[in-house]
């Protein structure tokens, strides 16, 4: 592991809106931000792979 690595990119900052997206989920349903979020928002997790 590099001892002094550059800060990694982390995408949209606090206060910014995230890009729109559309994706199939594991049950074959098409999902967007609107379909996923609750009335108070969403926790969106980016993971490496379920086969990791």
């Amino acid at each position: 592991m590099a001892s002094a690595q550059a800060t990694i990119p982390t995408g949209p900052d606090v206060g910014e809106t995230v890009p729109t997206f559309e994706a199939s989920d594991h049950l074959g349903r098409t999902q967007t931000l609107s379909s996923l979020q609750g009335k108070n928002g969403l926790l969106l997790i980016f993971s490496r792979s379920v086969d990791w």
Partner: protein
Amino acid sequence: MQLERKRKELEEQGIGVAALTYDPAETLATFAERVDIGYPLLSDPGSEIIKRFGILNESVPTDHQFYGIPHPGEYWLDADGRVTAKFFEQSHQDRFTAGRTLVRLFDAEAGPSATRIETQHLTATAWASDEEVRGGNRIALVVDLELPEKMHVYAPSVEGYIPIDWQAEDVEGLDYFAVEYPEAQMLRLDAINETVPVYEGSLRLIRDVRLGQPDDLAHLVENGRVTLRGKLRYQACDDKVCYLPQTIDLEWTLGLESHDRMRVE
């Protein structure tokens, strides 16, 4: 799966949950069956969404088996799709838990494993943001204090009195972060013509602790559980009398999950 346990709390807060990987939908379907996940796993083959978010891990060569993985992390979004918080692993060591975020962003309540201590001056309830942890997790430890009417304790900035102080144990395998104390109230002591920073009523103290990797924690583990200890020192006074400073022992016992190799939580 840690997050699955928190999902009910998130639901109660009106917060949806979804995880995204570059796996094909079929792979996610097989995984979801095996692991019993109750929230959507989104398929992003080709990593288009990962790239659109700007979090593609570009240190992985394009011909590598794992090309397309993101820098793993999470966004907490409000109802307008605006980021309210985000947590990304800057190193392989930092894994914030959802429980910790719930405590810090959403004013969570003490869990079932909370321990309560009553002294003649106050009640202290010690609890952790997560009941089950894994090596590398960064969680929040909480001490909720309730003082009876007319009782106060002294805030850290006070002079001439013993300030409240939460001391963590110095133990290998645990990295404690600074305590966050709430803002003090200024109390006028007419009898001695002084104004002092105090806490009255209810207050919450929070500090993060990062658990080391399994090897570093091993010496702390008993029957699959790890106990964290601390001491709370304070001096209490009411409207008539100042009491002798007290030190109470605090304890948090956490279940240690074995390392599941699956990364989706």
